[in-house]
């Protein structure tokens, strides 16, 4: 891909990010931050690519750690977000709470 095409994509993506997150209720700040945090776990792809063509000892080590870090970011990030959002799932009340 040409550099200018990549920059065009970057600029458009930046606007998408600004637009998607607008007027968020305070309650959702933390879960949403946690979700964006999980999404930048996408860096693991970079780890996979560099580890994929690594060919000396140090690169093996760096690449493996990078993949492991990325995997922690992804798995932990999405799971923690899911736990936080548990508060919004309608759980059946153990007993009807009448006054």
């Amino acid at each position, binding site marked *: 891909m040409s550099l200018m095409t990549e920059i065009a994509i970057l600029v458009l993506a930046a606007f998408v990010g600004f637009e998607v*997150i607008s007027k968020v209720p*305070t309650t959702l700040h933390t879960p949403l931050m946690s979700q964006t945090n999980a999404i*930048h776990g996408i860096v*693991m792809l970079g780890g996979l690519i560099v580890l994929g063509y690594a060919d000396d000892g140090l690169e093996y080590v760096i690449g493996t750690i990078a993949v*492991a870090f990325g*995997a*922690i970011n992804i798995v*932990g990030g999405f799971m923690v977000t899911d736990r936080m959002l548990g508060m919004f799932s309608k759980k059946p009340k153990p007993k009807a709470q009448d006054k």
Partner: protein
Amino acid sequence: MTPLAVLQPGGEAATALYIVAFSLFIIGLKKGTHPTTAKQGNMVAAAGMAVAVATTLLLDGMGNWGLIIIGLGVGSAVGFVASVRVQMTEMPQMVALYNGVGGGAVALIAWSELRHGISLGEDIPLEVLIPTLLAAVIGSVSFWGSNIAFAKLQDLIPTKPLAIPGQQVINVVLLIAILAACVDLAINNGDPSQPLFIGILIAAAILGNMVVLPIGGADMPVVISLLNAFTGLSAAAAGFALDNVALIVAGTIVGSSGTILTMEMATAMNRSVANVLFAGFGGAPAASAGSAEQRPYVSVGAQDAAIKLAYADNVVIVPGYGLAVAQAQHAIKEVANELEARGITVSYAIHPVAGRMPGHMNVLLAEADVPYEQLREMEDINPEMPRTDVAIVVGANDVTNPAAKNDPDSPIAGMPIIEVDQAQQVIVIKRSMSPGFAGIDNDLFYLPNTSMLFDDAKKAASDIAAEIQQL
């Protein structure tokens, strides 16, 4: 070369799958902004991630499968166990930690990419080298900054703003040194010096420490959110270096949406991002310890507190992080039940940053089955404070400090507070007189209508509930 190598990097099939992946991210985020769809949105984004990872594994040129499996296995296991075991109260530092490893991954990828470029023995094109350097610097700052934020929230290091002499000067010098080193590498792109690159990583690491260390614990949510946006940008930079469209799009979206979130959070706390980063809670009023001469306060027991509560008409509970730490949600709910049985109106006043992050306290109270209608937001409840008979502050501190309104010199001046000082009577449940997260004294404790109940929040609450029952 492996049997899995079915997709060409940058080829149409791989790119199409990446487009599917980042579309799912965007849909997931959009759903994440509404309470009813947020949980589903997280699943959608996770599905997008699965598509992105699978696509990458299918690329031609993937090798070292043993190491890939080790990295994936160890990382997934650590992430899984950590997120299952973490207490709800520790969520903020968990996010900080996950953010840190993301930044660390980017810095390592940049290093590996540079070594790869050197080993090819040709000039590294600047459109690869410059984003590589950017990724290295931002990733390293984010990794170390997040670790410091984690350590502060986990109380591994003092949460108080740490004043480092000449801090701003050192930061500027570090930044200039990093820039100069980057320029040197870019000029010598035929054979860039690897030791110099490692020097950049280290300088950026020190910078990350220096920027976050002086910031007080109360501002940590904003800092974590900002570092989160940074990690997104570093991922986008890595995407430029590796010519990977999924990294560019996802990283940029996190960068920009993270920036918006950071600004909204700062606004909720009536702070500006620049203020958080450069003024800290430290600065001049670090000498406020000088004003900590002994002032008189009233201390009461559970029985007195129970009597005050039982003969009120309306009671407002102000929960803070101390309640979360003591796991006192259920005990406090018990007190509320006793009071309601006596026909007393009970509501909970939730400060936007109660707990340690916006929305954190709502999560905790929902866990204790506190009805959603009883949770009142700060702007909503403050006007009612003068008509409140008893406000009971459970493990909250800085968010109730009237100095934020009354003392323009206070480090927390201008921060919105829950105006419990306006209530007829105030009961503060707290373990000791020690200062809160911002590291400053709370004027509320010394008001004539305030009574202090020194105890663990959970024990105090169950004692009060028992006493009310006997009245």
